[in-house]
């Protein structure tokens, strides 16, 4: 019974849930070839080879006469300098994972559709800022996805449609860089495609072709019941797919590893410029992958592959979690330009070895963004060269011991709300029993008589007196006459760990100024501890 097309088209469309989700499919044609090319500079004649035959070849190789399907011997005969790269499905999968990570910046969920596509949840495209109401922001989303892919070194084609299968088929065979099938229009968009676009189970395409079905449109017009009768459930599924009825939800990809990207140099490189060029690419890619996950790096590792063997590793600490490639590059440039390498470099690898959630507002200085950026850059430069411990903002600590009265904290970092410490039974420990707290008044009074400089360790001084009166202090091989003196202020405590007991005096030495001197209760000697400079 030949089906009547007009009749089947009048079949009622499925209504109510489940409905096919809006999906953006990103297809990466000849992924293995693209992957091989992106880590090599220039446009080398290159072919991906599997079981002795060329499966894909770069434009340069094609221009020399190499064609997919050629044997490797034929290909080598056609193109003398041909670089043969074995097909590596595992590496292709890893490449898809890396790209999926970067695309997470655009969509709430990304599915990896092997062997060469990624599917993005486009249901929230209309929420993007500046979304075009005409298409619900879907075309813009597709454009951004292609831009991210380009940033990561891949060319692709994108299609937005209802359902995973249809979107993927349109991306792969639609023949346009960006193709959009409006909701309800998916079946019409699919109708022009060949049956192969549906990626049917093995043999199904041939069996359908045998009964005269030459395209997706013809398949869509068949009633599912008649297909089920002849081709079983697989046939019915194929027809549903052809009509754009694909309700399968996305299987979101959850990244587990920290991003790492590699780049091979064009031969052995001895100068900084080409290395910086490679480092910029790597930084862009690693940063995009981190940003997709809402993360920022706090530590980067750049590994330089040396010629002929060996490695040089550079660790770059960052002042705060950031996925700003431009900032990383400032640091990389500084490190690379000052680097003396024992041998030429053949490749680079950049990995984010330590990451943290990147705060949406990077700095809390309430200042203009260009100042925030300038601050970010200078703090990271300083941290990279001097070490992270060298930069801090002091925070007062409630301690009597002068050298412990402040501690080094992060500069301008959002302060986390203090987590109350708890006893084993869960009851919070009152903070007053943790450290002997100073009262506010006490602290202020104490702060008033503190020197601007504290010497570590305190320097011993020798007292010179006459008739029980202190007349001079011998300091650094010289006696300084005492002009005035105030004190003592007794500071003592910490009997549970390192007890101390000191009497502090503020002593004005002629020709020097005011000094903070204490008599140590333990040995009875005098020490210079600070200067009122």
């Amino acid at each position, binding site marked *: 019974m030949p089906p009547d097309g007009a009749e089947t088209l009048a079949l009622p469309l499925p209504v109510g849930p489940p409905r096919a989700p809006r999906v953006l499919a990103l297809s990466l044609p000849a992924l293995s070839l693209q992957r091989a090319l992106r880590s090599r500079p220039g446009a080398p004649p290159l072919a991906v080879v599997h079981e002795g035959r060329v499966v894909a070849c770069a434009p340069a190789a094609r221009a020399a006469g190499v064609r997919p399907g050629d044997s490797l011997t034929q290909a080598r005969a056609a193109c003398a300098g041909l670089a043969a790269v074995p097909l590596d499905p595992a590496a292709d999968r890893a490449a898809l994972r890396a790209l999926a990570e970067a695309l997470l910046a655009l969509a709430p969920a990304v599915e990896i559709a092997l062997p060469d596509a990624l599917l993005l949840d486009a249901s929230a495209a209309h929420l993007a800022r500046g979304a075009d109401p005409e298409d619900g922001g879907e075309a813009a989303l597709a454009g951004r996805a292609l831009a991210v892919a380009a940033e990561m070194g891949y060319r692709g084609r994108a299609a937005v449609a209802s359902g995973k299968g249809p979107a993927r088929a349109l991306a792969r065979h639609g023949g346009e860089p960006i193709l959009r099938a409006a909701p309800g229009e998916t079946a019409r968009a699919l109708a022009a495609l060949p049956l192969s676009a549906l990626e049917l189970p093995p043999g199904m395409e041939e069996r359908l072709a045998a009964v005269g079905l030459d395209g997706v449109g013809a398949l869509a017009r068949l009633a599912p019941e008649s297909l089920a009768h002849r081709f079983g459930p697989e046939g019915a599924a194929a027809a549903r797919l052809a009509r754009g009825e694909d309700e399968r939800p996305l299987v979101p990809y959850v990244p587990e590893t920290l991003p790492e990207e590699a780049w091979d140099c064009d031969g052995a490189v001895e100068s900084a410029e080409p290395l910086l060029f490679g480092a910029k690419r790597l930084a862009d890619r690693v940063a995009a992958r981190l940003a997709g996950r809402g993360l920022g790096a706090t530590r980067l590792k750049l590994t330089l592959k040396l010629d002929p063997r060996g490695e040089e590793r550079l660790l770059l600490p960052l002042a705060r979690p950031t996925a700003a490639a431009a900032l990383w590059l400032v640091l990389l440039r500084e490190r690379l330009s000052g680097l003396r390498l024992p041998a030429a470099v053949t490749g680079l690898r950049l990995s984010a070895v330590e990451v943290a959630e990147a705060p949406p507002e990077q700095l809390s200085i309430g200042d203009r963004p260009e100042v925030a950026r300038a601050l970010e850059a200078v703090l990271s430069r300083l941290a990279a060269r001097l070490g992270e411990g060298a930069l801090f903002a*002091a925070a007062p600590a409630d301690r009597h011991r002068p050298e412990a009265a402040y501690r080094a904290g992060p500069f301008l970092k959002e302060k986390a709300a203090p987590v109350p410490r708890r006893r084993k039974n869960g009851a919070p420990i009152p903070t007053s029993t943790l450290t002997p707290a100073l009262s506010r008044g006490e602290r202020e009074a104490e702060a008033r008589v503190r020197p601007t400089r504290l010497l570590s360790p305190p320097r011993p001084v020798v007292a010179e007196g006459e008739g029980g009166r202190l007349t001079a202090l011998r300091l650094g091989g010289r006696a300084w006459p005492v002009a005035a003196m105030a004190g003592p202020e007794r500071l003592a405590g910490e009997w549970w760990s390192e007890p101390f007991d000191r009497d502090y005096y503020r002593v004005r030495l002629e020709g*020097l100024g005011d000094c903070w001197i204490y008599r140590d209760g333990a040995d009875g000697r005098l020490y210079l501890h600070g200067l009122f400079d």
Partner: protein
Amino acid sequence: MGVESQRAIIEDLRDRIRRIERRPARREGFLPSGRPEVDALLPGGGFPRGALADLAGGPASGKTLLALAAIGSAVAEGGLGAFVDGRGELYPPAAQALGLDLDRLLVVRPGPRSRGGGNGGQEGLWAAEALLASGAFAAVAVDVPVRGLLPARLEAMLRRLAAAAEKGGAAGLWLGSPDLACRVPAAVRLEVIPGERGGVRVRRAPGLGAEGVRVTGAGHAA
């Protein structure tokens, strides 16, 4: 709406736009020293922004107090301050006693773990140059040991600091000793000596007209 009031509104909006656009807002002019007595001594009524000021004094003269007060006034304006503590001696509680918001004071203390091998002088000067040029800090105090440096080399590095301050628009405060072996390319020089009854005596260096002033600071009241 009358023409006059319209004009007034436009004038007001223009003024606001000018204020928003004046970029960087705190670049020109002078940074109040935080002490009216010192401001009165300084040409322009404060430390020059985009230049170095040389605060020359002995180890307990009060120069650090002056620098912290100036940083305090930069912070009070909403800016950020930095102290390059090459000697590792700065005692932040004193800064807090001056009312300085410690959260907005970056202390840079090049230590033995830094790549330059822990030379507080060289690394400190490098850090100071980076901070001054960054444009992110309104005031940067620089206290680094320079004993190991040849005078010619030190002078070259100080010139770099002055150029960096000019680039970033920061007020650079060089804490030097009175017997520094070279000239500091500073726009203004204050000589700081301890006062007889506590406090600090400040003298503007000769050549700019010498006057004396005495400052008594909270941190120095006996």
